[in-house]
């Protein structure tokens, strides 16, 4: 498959983007006035009336643990590399956390979203999680669709390979919200500060990656979600959280949530998922007023010799970072990472252009372009006005190919219920790099969110 970054009509994009941005900015500016008037909590302080007993509705809401949020947003570009521009979106994400007593509770959370209201086909409803917890003595069991997050590093997590992410999600909080649950049975055994987790993932659920076939080409995906033995995953982790040193060791055997592509015909590429073994560890410790974190993994793949261009090579990936409160309102987090590809082959040297294009696409998404890859990530976060106004600068820089992702953003909590976000995602670099490849996903965004 040949991958071409198509040129778009920038004049039209700019006009739509500007109009939508102005409209949304106007809404964002106008709403607080309405909200302040509508929300009694923002009226000047007056003596509180005597509290009334909760209504039957309030009692039910409390019993079921109902909550969630509604958000309206605008993105100047999609994250699917489909050249769609100026996307006004709407998302409703309700959840319930009913408690059954001391023996258990449950959680169900849905996302109903249309990330482009101008396009009829973008509506999507999806259960993010739906599970029940059972508590027995020193053992907790969680059964159902659940998100399992591993790793103590910040955002770059070599051990976080169990459950998928939707990398096409448009959200100001995409780092938190792009995760999707997988059907799993998780048993945790607790003893003091130690937790032993045993996990069975009977039905595989892959990540959604930002990729759209150019005109005349087709991409299909074998999601391997039939529940066959060869598609199931198994994992174990021993975790210590307590005292002055946190650590864990972990193991996963199952399918890779990130796909690799292979060409079945000149115009058809099939994405599939191969088995991996992951052995990992992490730690966190405070040294004075500095928090130090580290995380690393060795991933063994089905191509240990590096001879199959359709399968990822084994690799070692580790991250070491530090965070520090420079002042009361300013936190800085810096991390360095290195990824070492075992039996590396340079895919750019493949002669056949069709084969080379697929192989290059694979190493871009698998981040195996160079034998040794190094880089830095950073996050600077400042808060003002009693934590109601936040500004954040987030960035990842890959040293090998000098490509980077940067996101400057601000958020303001108009009230406890209403919050607004604005920011800019910038992907940049050479075409033969991850962030260069994602360059067309660069977007301005604005979002208004109401939590209930």
């Amino acid at each position, binding site marked *: 498959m040949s991958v071409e970054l198509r040129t778009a009509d920038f004049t039209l994009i700019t006009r739509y983007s500007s109009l939508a941005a102005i409209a949304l900015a106007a809404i964002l500016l106008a709403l607080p006035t309405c909200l302040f008037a509508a929300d009694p909590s923002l009226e000047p302080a007056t003596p509180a009336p005597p509290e009334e007993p909760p209504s039957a509705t309030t009692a039910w809401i409390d019993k079921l643990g109902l909550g969630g949020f509604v958000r309206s947003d605008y993105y100047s570009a999609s994250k699917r590399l489909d050249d769609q521009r100026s996307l006004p979106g709407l998302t409703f994400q309700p959840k319930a956390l009913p408690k059954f007593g001391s023996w258990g509770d449950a959680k169900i959370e849905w996302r109903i979203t249309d990330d482009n209201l101008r396009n009829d086909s973008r509506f999507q409803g999806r259960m993010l999680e739906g599970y029940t917890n059972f508590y027995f003595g020193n053992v907790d069991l969680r059964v159902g669709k659940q998100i399992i997050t591993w790793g103590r590093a910040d955002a770059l997590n070599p051990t976080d390979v169990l459950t998928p992410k939707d990398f096409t999600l448009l959200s100001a909080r995409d780092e938190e919200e792009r995760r999707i649950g997988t059907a799993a049975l998780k048993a945790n055994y607790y003893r003091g500060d130690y937790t032993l987790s045993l996990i069975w993932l009977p039905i595989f659920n892959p990540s959604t990656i930002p990729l759209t076939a150019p005109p005349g080409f087709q991409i299909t995906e074998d999601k391997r979600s039939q529940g066959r033995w060869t598609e199931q995953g198994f994992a174990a982790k021993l975790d210590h959280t307590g005292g002055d040193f946190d650590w864990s060791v972990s193991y996963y055997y199952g399918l890779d949530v990130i796909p690799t592509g292979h060409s079945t015909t000149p115009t058809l590429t099939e994405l599939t998922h191969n088995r991996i073994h992951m052995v990992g560890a992490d730690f966190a410790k405070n040294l*004075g007023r500095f928090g130090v974190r580290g995380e690393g993994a060795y991933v063994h793949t089905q191509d240990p010799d590096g001879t199959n261009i359709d399968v990822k090579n084994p690799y070692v990936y580790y991250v070491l970072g530090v965070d*520090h409160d420079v002042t009361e309102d300013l936190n800085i987090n810096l991390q360095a990472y290195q990824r070492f590809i075992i039996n590396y082959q340079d895919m750019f040297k493949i002669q056949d252009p069709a084969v080379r294009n697929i192989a290059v696409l694979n190493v871009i998404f698998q981040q195996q372009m160079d034998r040794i890859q190094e880089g830095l990530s950073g996050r600077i976060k400042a808060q003002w006005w009693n*934590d109601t106004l936040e500004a954040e600068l987030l960035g990842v820089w890959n040293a090998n190919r000098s490509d980077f992702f940067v996101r400057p953003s601000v958020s303001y909590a108009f009230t406890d219920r209403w919050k607004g976000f604005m920011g800019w995602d910038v992907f940049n670099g050479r075409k033969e790099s991850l962030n260069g490849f994602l360059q067309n996903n660069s977007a301005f965004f604005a979002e208004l969110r109401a939590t209930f």
Partner: protein
Amino acid sequence: MLIGAAALAAPASAEEPSARDIMEKNFYVTKIKHMLNESTMTLTNDKGQQRVRKTRSVSLLQPNGIDSKIMIRFLQPGDVEGTGYLQVQHYDGEDDMWIYLPALKKVRRLVANNKKDSFVGSDFSYGDILVPVVDTYQHVILKSEALDGEDCWVIESVPASEQIRKDYGYGKKTSWIRKSNFMEKKVEFMDTGGRPLKTMVVPEIVEVDAAGHKWWALKREVKNLQTGHSTLLIFENLDTKKPVGEDFFTTRYLEREK
């Protein structure tokens, strides 16, 4: 200067305890073996706009009688609902702290805060929430006076060192301590430049352990005199009878969102 301070710290009369004794009793009067409670923190800015934080907390006093383990679950606002916060205090060092963020599904070790930093955006500092041991400050009885009908000692406290002064952000504290039970009724804080910074009033208290002479403030209100921002903290549903085990202060409970 130290000799002068020591002379000033002498008891105001032969019958009265020293300023240090009073502040030591004030320190221990709220050291309750274990407690469950719910609290509502209302933050009000100078324009009268309010924000409300509701939490449920469990605490367990450690064998040294000074430090506690505290688990706090945020109930409101919806944006932070389910967030868990675990603190293991060390009066002679940095506390160990973890936060569980439901959206990230992660327990994260936090870097210890400066004592002068704001507690979750409120007008309380971390140093106000975790009251320092008595010798952190040098104390002097200024006088006795009735405040809202209650007899109080008025005690001036200055940081025992320059480092403490910088860490806590106060140049001086003046406390009105109730003579009947050693609970504070009012505290005035000066910043390190000598300007009035905050006033805290404690209008409602309750005796939670008569045998152990333990009391708890049901209501605390802090007003920042420099910004006009204020915070009202109200405690409800106090329970000091229900047993609380050590195993409660682990990631197992931290990760439960309800």
